[in-house]
């Protein structure tokens, strides 16, 4: 009874603190997560006029398309692990296929989406490896082992702040990309490196939103495992 006013005071202090803490944490979170891809690059619709010029095989229109997309496609091919010569061949292959199939292109799809879709298929052909939906991926077990039966962390994310502040992070990620299976690597590359949206990536990879969720989840889980290992070895 004697402590009642004090308790009430403490409650008020806690309420103010909690509100402030939650608000500030929420604000920072919403800034980050409500716009998960900060500088997401939206696909620009292809105009009917430009499509006509391409169909007429106007050299200027072809040059325009090459200038607009070749560099991004090359970068993506390099990101998929092809060397410079292979990447350039691949990009040429993409444009050749694009021109061959131009008459069937109805313009409903964005040009970039279509070109990336061709790149995806050509890369698969070259690797002669089908992008399969691997039901049993060992990374799932590694992810599961981080939580107990009630879903609480038993092996929480390592505190890698020091490592992440380092400028070497990009290089570490580059090294870790090699451990990703092709399908996960493509999902990660299109989302995180090229910054494309979910809908466009699903069209390019010809997968459902759920399947893409599995791919990107596994890619990030693998990368985090790899980065943590590198972080531990450095500390």
């Amino acid at each position, binding site marked *: 009874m004697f402590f009642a006013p004090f308790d009430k005071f403490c409650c008020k202090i806690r309420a103010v603190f909690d509100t402030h803490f*939650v608000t500030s944490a929420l604000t920072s979170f919403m800034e980050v997560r409500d716009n998960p891809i900060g500088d997401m690059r939206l696909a620009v619709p292809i105009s009917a006029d430009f499509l006509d010029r391409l169909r007429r095989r106007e050299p200027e229109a072809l040059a325009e398309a090459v200038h607009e997309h070749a560099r991004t496609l090359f970068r993506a091919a390099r990101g998929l692990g092809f060397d410079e010569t292979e990447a350039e061949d691949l990009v040429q292959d993409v444009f*050749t296929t694009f021109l061959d199939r131009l008459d069937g292109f109805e313009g409903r799809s964005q040009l970039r989406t279509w070109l990336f879709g061709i790149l995806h298929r050509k890369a698969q052909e070259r690797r002669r490896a089908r992008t399969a939906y691997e039901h049993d991926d060992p990374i799932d077990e590694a992810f599961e082992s*981080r939580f107990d039966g009630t879903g609480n962390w038993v092996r929480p994310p390592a*505190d890698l702040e020091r490592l992440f502040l380092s400028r070497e992070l*990009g290089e570490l990620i580059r090294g870790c990309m090699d451990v990703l299976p092709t399908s996960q690597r493509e999902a990660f590359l299109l989302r995180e490196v090229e910054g494309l949206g979910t809908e466009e990536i699903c069209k390019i990879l010809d997968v459902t939103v759920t399947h893409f969720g599995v791919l990107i989840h596994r890619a990030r889980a693998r990368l*985090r495992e790899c980065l943590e290992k590198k972080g531990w070895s450095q500390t």
Partner: protein
Amino acid sequence: MISCKQVAELLTSDQLQSQSWWRRMEVRLHLAMCTLCARLARQLNQIRAGARGLREGNEADGGLEERLIRRLTRMQ
């Protein structure tokens, strides 16, 4: 109450935006209170920032477009 594992799955699979308003609020509140999940969220953002840096090393040389245009025009 949403668990750490469920939060981690939603964050790493990019499925948060497709969840109900209530579910998203649950995740936000959880992140405001759980330092470990908040750390994971922060690290995922840092990985994204680091990944953008990968573009630089994979850029083509200045002559790529002209070489391609030349070859493609020859094929027409």
